[in-house]
């Protein structure tokens, strides 16, 4: 969203224009929901938290001064909410199978049943994959998602913000409040861990 459109949107939000709220959610929902889903590992949790993130944004919109982009501010709210939710859920010690595990298994089963020639995300960008390749792709996706889930919430958020959302270091510093050097070193550790974890399961 360009600066002028963003300024206009913020102005309308601060005037409690309900259509502006709907427009704001539609503009940012894909990115925010995607981040929350990867952070929490559950669609249900991500859905619940996505609503809370936007409600928080709207309740505090009067204090938004335009020092950063609206999207960056929204990411900050989303990251903070998701870290808190992870800590809360960890304390409650849930042990049920995650949506991602189930989705990975369903994807594997579905891809195996439907056979080759199907373009699938799970084939890592390869169109017209053979059934065995589709199955391998779905398995790899499950492995990657599980590996992400093994990271602590801070490293997880840094990895997702930089390597999935492709944000700049400047934006990540604004979102997390961490110095750039700290962001880079924690990101480095997260990437090494991810690579090692995935290698363990793919050899």
């Amino acid at each position, binding site marked *: 969203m360009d600066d002028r459109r963003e300024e206009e949107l913020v102005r309308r939000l601060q005037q*409690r224009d309900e259509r502006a*709220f*709907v427009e704001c*959610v*539609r503009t940012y*929902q894909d990115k*925010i*929901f*995607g981040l929350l*889903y*990867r952070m*929490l*590992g*559950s669609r*249900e*949790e*991500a*859905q619940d938290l*996505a*609503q809370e993130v936007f*409600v928080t944004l*709207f309740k505090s919109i009067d204090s938004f001064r335009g020092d950063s982009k609206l999207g960056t501010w929204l990411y900050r709210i989303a990251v903070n909410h998701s870290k808190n939710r992870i800590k809360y*859920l*960890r304390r409650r*010690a*849930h042990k*049920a*199978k*995650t949506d991602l595990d189930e989705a990975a298994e369903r994807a594997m089963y579905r891809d195996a049943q439907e056979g080759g020639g199907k373009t699938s*995300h*799970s084939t*890592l*960008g390869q169109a017209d994959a053979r059934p065995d390749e589709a199955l391998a*792709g779905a398995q*790899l*996706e499950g492995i*990657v*998602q*599980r590996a992400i*889930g*093994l*990271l*602590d*919430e801070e490293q997880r958020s840094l*990895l997702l913000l*930089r*390597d*999935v959302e*492709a944000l700049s270091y400047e934006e990540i510093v604004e979102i997390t409040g961490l110095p750039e050097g700290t962001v*880079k*070193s924690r*990101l*480095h*550790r997260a*990437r090494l*861990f*991810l*690579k090692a*974890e*995935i290698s363990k399961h793919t050899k």
Partner: protein
Amino acid sequence: MGRTTLSEPEKTPPASAQPSAAAESPSNDPVDERDEEQASRALLSGLSSVSPPRDLAQSVPALIHRRSQGRFFGRKSLADRLPLEWISLVMLLVLAVTYAVLKLLFTD
């Protein structure tokens, strides 16, 4: 409730929290850093995209309505919608016009 995260709280802290000595700090070489980033992005590029719930744009304002009992989007009074200075200027103008009219009516 069945809500879960990928983290398993009863296990020892994630290995990512206990880096080996070799993994302590990133390389200062920007080329190494770029290569590492590209490799990581390649691994993560296989993740399927996820779509948000279709009704999120409607459910959020509805939630705000419910929690604020309709007050959050409620119609504001004139004093809340217009700057106070404008209202003051308009009132002063009205007073001046009223004074002028009355003066004309009651003087010869």
